């Protein structure tokens, strides 16, 4: 029978060298069953006692897409480069909603499970990662709307669409890498959750979700080179709407940023982990 990772626990001093990180990841993988249960638990809690239930996973992105299309296309006449504006917005909006809701929810994930964290040990990263996985399910509902929009506008994607899962994996790794240290810091300073809320609002406007990158003056476009969400969202648009490869240079940059963010984030999380129960 498989024993817990703590089977031979040398002093609970969390090592954080490269080898230790690999061991932590292995331990995390060993508890994937728990990750699954935690995700289900989150999902069941998410829309509990609401009349519409999971319909909210449709209503939320759909309503945002409609209002954004009305304001920015009908009223303000934003250009979307030949693609119908609702479709253009929605391809950017879905990954943005995933990122922002996952980050906000994961930031609160450890603090919100105080009763567990103070009683039983399990790799704590399961909590924020489960929060992120919950949002993947929401995203899947959103994809149904996307397919509907594509049918409505008779947009047939080309084979470049096979890039989408790759992009999404990288996007998710980036999201996790950012969420982990924030979830840990949130235990030390409750300011973090408010900071995250504010930062997300500002980040939304600095990411080409409601406008195309081409609408921005040349001298400000460097923002999109250092903004991973811009890199990902532009890449989603290229492969879904424009029959284009994601842009190798930008994609490599995205990979590098996501990988680096994850390693640093996981390292910081594991460093702070032994103090969680003291702080919560």
């Amino acid at each position, binding site marked *: *029978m*498989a*024993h*817990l990772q*703590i*089977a*031979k*626990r*040398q*002093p*609970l*001093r*969390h090592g954080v060298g490269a080898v230790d990180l690999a061991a932590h990841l292995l331990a995390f993988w060993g*508890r994937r*069953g*728990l990750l*699954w*249960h935690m995700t*289900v*638990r989150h999902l*069941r*809690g998410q829309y*509990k006692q609401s009349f519409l239930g999971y319909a909210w996973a449709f209503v939320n992105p759909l309503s945002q897409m409609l209002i954004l299309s009305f304001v920015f296309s009908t009223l303000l006449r934003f250009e979307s480069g030949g693609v119908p504006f609702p479709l253009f917005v929605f391809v950017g909006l879905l990954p943005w909603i995933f990122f922002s809701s996952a980050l906000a929810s994961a930031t609160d994930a450890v603090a919100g499970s105080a*009763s*567990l*964290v*103070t*009683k*039983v*040990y*399990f790799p704590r990263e399961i909590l924020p990662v489960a929060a992120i996985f919950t949002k993947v399910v929401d995203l899947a509902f959103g994809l149904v709307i996307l397919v509907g929009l594509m049918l409505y506008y008779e947009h047939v994607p080309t084979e470049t669409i096979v890039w989408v899962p790759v992009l999404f994996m990288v996007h998710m790794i980036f999201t996790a890498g950012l969420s982990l240290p924030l979830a840990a810091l949130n235990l030390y*300073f*409750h*300011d973090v959750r408010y900071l995250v809320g504010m930062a997300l609002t500002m980040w939304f406007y600095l990411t080409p979700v409601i406008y195309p990158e081409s609408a921005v003056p040349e001298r400000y476009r460097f923002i999109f080179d250092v903004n991973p969400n811009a890199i990902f969202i532009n890449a989603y648009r290229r492969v879904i709407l424009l029959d284009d490869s994601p842009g190798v240079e930008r994609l490599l940059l995205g990979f590098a940023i996501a990988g680096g963010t994850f390693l640093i984030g996981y390292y910081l999380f594991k460093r702070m982990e*032994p*103090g969680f*129960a*003291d*702080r919560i």
Partner: protein
Amino acid sequence: MQTASDPAIEFRQVSKRFQLHEGRTLREFIPALLGGRGWSPPFYALRDVSFSIARGETVGIIGRNGSGKSTALKLIAGVMAPTSGEVLVTGRISPLIELGAGFHPDLTGRENVFMNASILGMSTREVKAKFDEIVAFAELWDFMDTPVKRYSSGMYTRLGFSVAVHSDPDILLVDEVLAVGDTPFQEKCLQKMRDFQAQGVTMVYVSHGLDVVKQFCHRAVLLDGGHLLAAGDPAAVVQTYLDMVSSMQPTA
């Protein structure tokens, strides 16, 4: 490699310090940082405590409120890390601390059994194999498809206890749980613990119930103010504790 003579649990000069008033916001934290002083006076829940518990042994930890008993359990559970010293634990731990901590009120009893067992490190296959046993022990056959928020507090703890004792632990941490449930259920729990003793499961038992400690434990440890005052034969340690308490307060 571990050998049979390795202790299941070993505390080596363990101290655990807490900050009593913690700065929770940056506004409280930054002045403290710039001023170069601690945020608050530290408080030692445990101070230089060393003891070890052999495999298969049942050890009772006694002491007044705030003596560091629960902190010791949390260190064993791996939930907290010692400030200094080492805590070494060998084996699968099942904490019977505030049962049902992992329960989600909106999930059914069945779903919560799988959830809680998974938190304790059981695989889905293991839970499936033991599911009927778990339900039978909790005596909740008719309520497995009811959300646990509809449970009474007794049903809640019974289910939590049942999952924990069926998780096939090497080490069982027991924190005053025998006070739950009605008398027949309490007796059933005690019987289950005796079975565990017979099977060679290591148990750490934190309690104010001194009679149970005397009858049930092989050894006892007395903590006071974070210090280890006595360890050894339960009857003798309980007597030390009683003497200590009576010397502190005038007889009523």
